[in-house]
């Protein structure tokens, strides 16, 4: 079974966005728990933050395949 070191590097690089997405949703959940009526407003902000943090992981996987 052969593989490339790129994928190991990508695995390491994915830690960052993983932690970031965890923090974003932790803040979202505690925000909704404190103030349930703010959910609809918080949801779009949380999804935006999630998308921005996820973009880093996506750039990583693109580079892992390209480089």
């Amino acid at each position, binding site marked *: *079974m052969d593989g490339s070191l790129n994928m190991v590097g990508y695995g390491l690089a994915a830690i960052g966005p993983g932690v970031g997405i965890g923090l974003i949703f932790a803040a979202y959940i505690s925000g909704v728990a404190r103030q349930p009526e703010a959910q*609809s*407003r918080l*949801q*779009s902000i949380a*999804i*935006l933050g*999630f*998308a921005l943090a*996820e*973009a880093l992981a*996506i*750039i990583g*996987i*693109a580079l892992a*395949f390209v480089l």
Partner: protein
Amino acid sequence: MSVIGMVGIRTEGDSFTPPGPGNFDLPGFFEVAGQPVTKPMVQLVIAAVLVFWLFHAAIKRRELVPGRFQFAAEGAYGMVRNSVARDIIGSHDFMKYVPYLVTLFFFIIVNNFFGSFPGIQFPSFSRASMAYALAGLSWVIYNAAGIRRHGFAGYLKLQCVPAGVTPFMYPLLVPLEFFSNILVRPVTLALRLFANMLAGHLLVILFATGGLYMLQEGSLLVKPVGLLAWLLFIAISFLELLVQFLQAYVFTLLNAMYISGAIADEH
């Protein structure tokens, strides 16, 4: 002949070749003007026809008290209109962009669900070019909306010159803002959809073929691991359904945000 050979995964002798991006290069069904017509191309057309037909059929016999089908269609439409378009673009001028956002959402979600649909099982947007075309269309629309509202110079100023910053910082910030708001946005928009579809589907293929290989070729101790891989394959398929919905939602949401940023008034 093993079942692995039947699903088109290369096996060389006894060794297992893990699936890679190469599995997504499908041969064309037939050629039109020297250009092969491949499975995702056909799927795009099917998805467009399907979305049109579903909504058309739902509103053909519309009644004041909606039937089941009409109720489902109205609920789906209302979700995108209210929770995406109205909440983000604002109640003043969101109606102009609702047709585009609703079409976009349902087109993407049908194409994504093709990835889990038995018999098709290929997400159209796991080919990067499809996602780039969609993001290119979105890029044209949000820039055109902004230019129509503010004029060309006014729009560039809105997107590139951050408010409340001392002019000293402009040489540093203006190129960065231009780069991030005008140039990189469509690329990340397309890559997010593409990479999620590719990676998710790759994971499903890996667990399915790897589990099958271990069940067929493995020794007695390896076979239970193959069974475990198949259980995970089922679990990951459900996770994929969630991701497919979420990516369609995120794509539409980001489109609405870009439009709302482009037509926003200066503070």
